[in-house]
C-alpha cells in the first residue's frame, strides 16, 4: 500500500516510476558531496528551484528522479529532465496542506514544510499523466 503525499506539474509523460529515498539538496556543495558519495542512484532529489544549473552535475551523471518546489515543464530544469528522460515532478504541493507556491510571494515556511514532510522518506514517482505528477509515500517510508 502507498498513498499520495504530494502532487505537481509532470515535466513529461513517462512509464518510468522510480523509487528512492528523498534527499533535499540546498547548496552546490550538497550536490557535489552526493555525487562523491556514490549513492546518487538511491535518491529522489528534492530541490527548491526549477532551474538547471544547480543540478547540472547530477543530471549529467544520471539522476533517478527529481522533485522541485517551484518551476514548470517550460522551466529549464523541466526541459532538461525531459531531454535526459529523468522523471520530474515540479512545484509540488503536499496533499494534506493547502499551501501552494506562488512566484515571488511564497515564504520559507512553505518550502520548509515540504522538506520536513518528505526528506528521508521512501517515495515513488508516478509520471504517466499528461499534466499531473504524483508522489507516493511507500509503505515503509513513513
Amino acid at each position, binding site marked *: 500500500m502507498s498513498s499520495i503525499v504530494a502532487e505537481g506539474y509532470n515535466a513529461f509523460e513517462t512509464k518510468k516510476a522510480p523509487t528512492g529515498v528523498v534527499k533535499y539538496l540546498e547548496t552546490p556543495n550538497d*550536490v557535489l558531496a552526493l555525487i562523491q558519495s556514490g549513492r546518487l542512484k538511491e535518491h529522489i532529489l528534492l530541490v527548491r528551484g526549477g532551474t538547471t544549473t544547480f543540478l547540472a552535475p547530477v543530471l549529467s551523471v544520471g539522476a533517478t528522479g527529481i522533485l522541485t518546489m517551484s518551476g514548470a515543464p517550460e522551466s529549464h530544469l523541466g526541459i532538461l529532465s525531459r531531454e535526459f528522460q529523468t522523471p520530474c515532478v515540479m512545484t509540488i504541493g503536499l496533499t494534506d496542506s493547502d499551501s501552494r507556491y506562488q512566484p515571488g510571494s511564497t515564504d520559507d515556511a512553505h518550502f520548509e514544510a515540504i522538506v520536513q514532510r518528505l526528506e528521508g522518506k521512501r517515495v515513488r514517482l508516478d509520471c504517466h499523466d499528461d499534466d499531473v505528477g504524483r508522489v507516493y509515500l511507500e509503505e515503509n517510508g513513513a
Partner: protein
Amino acid sequence: MSTTNKTATYKLRYEPDDDGLRFQDLTYEGNFVGLEPVPDGILGDKMMRRRAKSGVLEKVSKDEVLREQFTLDELNDLNNYLAWNIWDVLVMRATEGVSGMIPRQEYEILAFMHEFYRWPEILRMTTSEAGPQGVMDIGATARREIGTKVNCVHDWCIGAVGFGMGRCGLLALEAIQPDDYLEESNEILKFMQRVLWGKRHDGYILNSQDRYRCRIHEQEVLDQLVGELEDFEPDEPKHDAFTRFNAAATLLAFLDHFDCRLGLGDTGPYPLPDGRVLIVRDLFTNEEEFHWSDVCDHEDVPHCYTVVLAIDAEAMGLAEIRVNDISTTFTRPKNYVSHITGGAVFIREKWNTPMGEVRPVALDDLGPELEKLQQATLKLYSKLARMPRRELITNGHWVYFVDMILPHLRLAGTYEKACRDYDLWEIDQRVSNYYYEITKRKFAHEVVPTRIFSGKGYLPFSEKADLRSSKYRWL
C-alpha cells in the same frame, strides 16, 4: 486532458481556421484591460494581431522593413505583441524561483536595463557600417548555416529583451517615463525587424506569427543534414546514445550561458517525406568570449554541436509542435524524446568555421564527445560554485548584455569596434548603481517578474509622444 491518442493531428494546426491547443491555463491581459483575456498559442497570436492598429504584425514588404522609422502605432503594436509573446513563452518558465546556484533574476534585470540604455548607439553604429540591407543580410545567413547564433532567441532578444523588458524594468524602477527614448526604441526594434525579416523571408518576423514554425533552412542545407541521418528504433542502444548526447550537450550549453536559453537554438519542424518531422538544434557548448569557458577549451569542447532529431509524429500521436521564439521546441504530448527514430550530429569548431568544414560525427563515435561534455560540465559547475554572488551576477549580466547582440556584431564586422570605441565590456554607471536598488523592496524577485511576465509593465507610448524623443531631463 489526454493528448496521447496515437494519431498525429499536428498538421491540423496549420489550417487557417484552426486555433491550436492551449499549453497552459493562464490568460493574458497586458494593456488591453477590460477586453477578452488572450490565451497562449495560435489563438493568442490571432487575437493580438486583430487588436493591432497598424499592419506591422502582418506580412510586411522589404521596402517597409528598410524604412528607417516606425510610426507611433507600429511601435505600440510591436510593444503590445512582444509583451504577449514574452508572456506566451516565459510565464510558466518564470515560475522556477531561485536557482541555488546563479542569481538569475538579479543578473537578468540589470542586463535588461543596461541593454535599453546602451544598445541603441551600438546598433545604430552597426546599421551605419553595414547598411539597412546589410543588417537584413545578416539575418539571411542563418538560412544557409548551422551552428550560428544568428537564431530565433538571439534575434528575438534584441527587441523583446533589449527594448521590451529593458524599458519595462526602467519604467518599474521609475527611472524613465513612457514617452522617453522613442528614438532609441525605434533603433532597437528596427534592427530586430530587419534581422528577423531577412532570416525568415516570408514577410513575418516571429515564429508565433507562423503557427510556431521556423522553417528557415534552404533545401540544400536540409538535404545535407538529412543525408547524415542514422535511423534507429526507440529501444535500440543507438537511441539511448544519441539522446544522452543531446541531453548532455543541452545541459552544458545552458551552463556555459549561465542558465539561460541563449545556449540553444532550434529550427523546424521540417516535414520529411516519410512522415517524420525534423528539428535542427544548435547547442553552443563553448562561447569563446566568456572567460569561464576556459574549462570547455581544456576539454576540447567545440563552439557548437548541431543535433538533428527525426521524430516519429505518427507513433507519438503528435497533436501540436511549437518551435517558439526563444528557439525551444515544445510538443503535445510533451515527451517527443522517446519517439526520436533518427539522428545526426555535426561539429562547428569555432563560430566562424566555414560551412564546408563543419563535420558530421557518427553516432557510434559519440562516446568521446559525451565524455568531453561531462568533464566540462563538472569542471564548470565547480568553477561557478566558487564564484561570489557579485561575480555570478556580473557574469550572468555579460551573457545577456553581450551575447544577445554578439552574433550580429560579429557578422557586421563591428564587434571589435563596439569593444574598443563603445566600451561594450564596461558597465554603465547608472546600471552599476541599480545593483544596489534591485534587491530592495523585492524589486528583482517580485516587482519586475510580475510586470514583465504578466504583461502589465509594457506601458504604451502616448498619443503625444514625439518620435524624435530621447530623454532630456533627469529630475
